């Protein structure tokens, strides 16, 4: 017979040290940030002899994710890390995991109010706020801006947009939104919208995008257009592409949602919970700002990771 390692639960290796099996249920592996995070977690896990991580792909679908959590519970993992597609949608499944006595950690974004679960997160409100704060200063009076949003109903998409509303638009009634569309985190969709906006508006002062992909897409349209030289642009994530654009002086600012930091924190948290050092942990990683002042540091970071040559 073929025994399933997952079924062994905590088994011993030759050193007699306990090896823990952890399921990481990713939101999806088909968007670049989520894929980066999954890769970072796998790499980080290699540093722990006592932890083996299995990564599952939630395919950006609530029901697939729920299914995966169910499967992980059935397979008796020692811990489950959930990167929810939609916090509320996965909530009762996270609760089931806790009820089954499995260590449950929610991350990027945290699911609020799951009794007995831990969390490691980067706060999407904060990520947008750090940009909105500088935008308050940088965006000129009576400016025209365009807004690019993530998929409706998505926790990060909504929280970042909400943050921009409260931290920027409410404080700057002089600013006009001349275009606001859902580009679903996609670069090509963002490009199409920007191309159209450029036709209808001779003056656009800033691009406010809920992630770097969309900001990059919009910038792709105007980067060589002298009419729009000096346009401001804000994103979130700190992707390799955004960092390069900032280095080139094309993009204004983004905030890093560092997959490495999240991965480090997640593994550290998992280790502490699994070994019984602690029973519940809730931490947030920072959302450091990346702009022309400190961009070299992040270029280096991406170079080390191989994302930039």
């Amino acid at each position, binding site marked *: *017979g*073929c*025994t*399933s390692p*997952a*079924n062994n639960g905590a088994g011993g290796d030759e050193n007699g040290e306990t090896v823990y099996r952890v399921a990481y249920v990713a939101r999806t*592996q088909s968007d670049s940030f989520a894929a980066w995070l999954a890769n970072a977690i796998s790499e980080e896990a290699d540093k722990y002899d006592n932890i083996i991580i*299995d*990564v*599952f*792909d939630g395919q950006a*679908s*609530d*029901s697939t994710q*729920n*299914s*995966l959590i*169910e*499967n992980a519970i*059935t*397979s008796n993992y020692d811990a489950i890390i959930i990167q929810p597609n*939609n916090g*509320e*949608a996965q*909530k*009762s499944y996270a609760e089931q995991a806790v009820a089954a006595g499995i260590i449950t950690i929610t991350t990027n974004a945290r699911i609020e109010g799951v009794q007995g679960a831990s969390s490691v997160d980067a706060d999407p409100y904060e990520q947008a706020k750090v940009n909105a704060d500088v935008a308050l200063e940088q965006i000129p009076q009576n400016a025209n801006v365009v807004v690019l949003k993530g*998929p*409706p*109903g*998505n926790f990060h998409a*909504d929280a970042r947009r909400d943050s921009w509303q409260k931290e920027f638009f409410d404080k700057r009634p002089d600013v006009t939104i001349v275009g606001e569309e*859902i580009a679903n985190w996609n670069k090509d969709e963002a490009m199409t919208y920007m191309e159209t906006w450029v036709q209808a508006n001779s003056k656009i002062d800033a691009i406010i995008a809920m992630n770097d992909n969309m900001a990059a897409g919009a910038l792709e349209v105007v980067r060589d257009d002298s009419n729009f030289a000096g346009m401001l642009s804000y994103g979130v994530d700190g992707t390799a592409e955004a960092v390069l654009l900032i280095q080139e002086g094309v993009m204004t600012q983004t905030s890093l949602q560092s997959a490495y930091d999240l991965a480090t924190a997640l593994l550290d948290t998992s280790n502490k919970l699994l070994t019984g050092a602690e029973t519940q942990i809730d931490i947030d990683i920072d959302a450091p700002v990346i702009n022309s002042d400190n961009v070299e540091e992040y270029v280096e970071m991406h170079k080390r990771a191989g994302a930039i040559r």
Partner: protein
Amino acid sequence: MKTDRMKKIWSDIKSKYSIFLVLAALVIVSWIANENFLSVGNLSNVSRQIAVVTILAFGQTILIISGMLDLSSGSVLALAGVLSVSVYTMTESLLLAFIVAILASVACNMLNGLMVTKFKAPPFIATLAMMTMARGAALLYTNGQNIYQIGDYVKFGQGSTFGVPTPIVFMIIILFITWYILKHTTLGRSVYAIGGNEEAANASGINVNKVKMKAFIVNGIFVGIAGVIFMSRVNGGMPNGAVGYEFKSLTAAIIGGTSFTGGIGTAVGTLAGSFIVGFLDNIMVLTRVNSYLQQIVRGAIIALAVIYDIWSKQKRTKKKLGNIQEKSK
């Protein structure tokens, strides 16, 4: 003698029920690969997971047999679902919420039917238009926001009836209804006739438009129920939910032997198709295949399953001819 008969039965099974053999093979291989696979917990998981898509696939089966299809089912599901959830949060009546879902979905499908029968739009276009419109309506209604705190509504999707998870109960009931309609009602037989040859069906005195409309209404009922289960399973009213489900349900039906040429298909075939996809996804997760590799394997196995099915049916046709010839000698 006996072995001969056995052989014959076996070859009959092999040809007529080849897709079930594929399913059986998949189950056995999966079980060998991971002993958890056949645990009650896991089987019940898979069944619950595929319930929504399977219910949609039953509607697709009826439509495809009659030469149509529904590209709007994922979106209509979302619209019906959010309306239902929203009615529930206002009235706290599960019955009312259920009725609203079905009414909304049937209304959309009657519009589909109208476009197809009265205005002669190809079903692909009619339901594609509905796909966009229903999604837009769901988002507009909720302003793109998910509806949370839906209380007891979760019972539809997460509860149990007589110890069986409710989604599975619904799936079984709708399997039965589909089977019964297709096999034992004039509606079902008309559906086959229209899909087999619409002109001939018309000439045989079948009211083609009426039958098509009825097929859409039945589909509407199924989609509405699926909407309730879906929202309840994800514990919220999600206007952006079930994207791509029309596609998954079409796939399940086609793998199960329903043919786009029309006039061919069965309810159990569709169930088998749905389980093949469900088990495949499940065992790859259980055995922790790299998720990119999973996609490659999934594609390959779906192709192989269907090719095997078609190949063994062709062999059967040849066999049959042989029999006739023997008889005539």
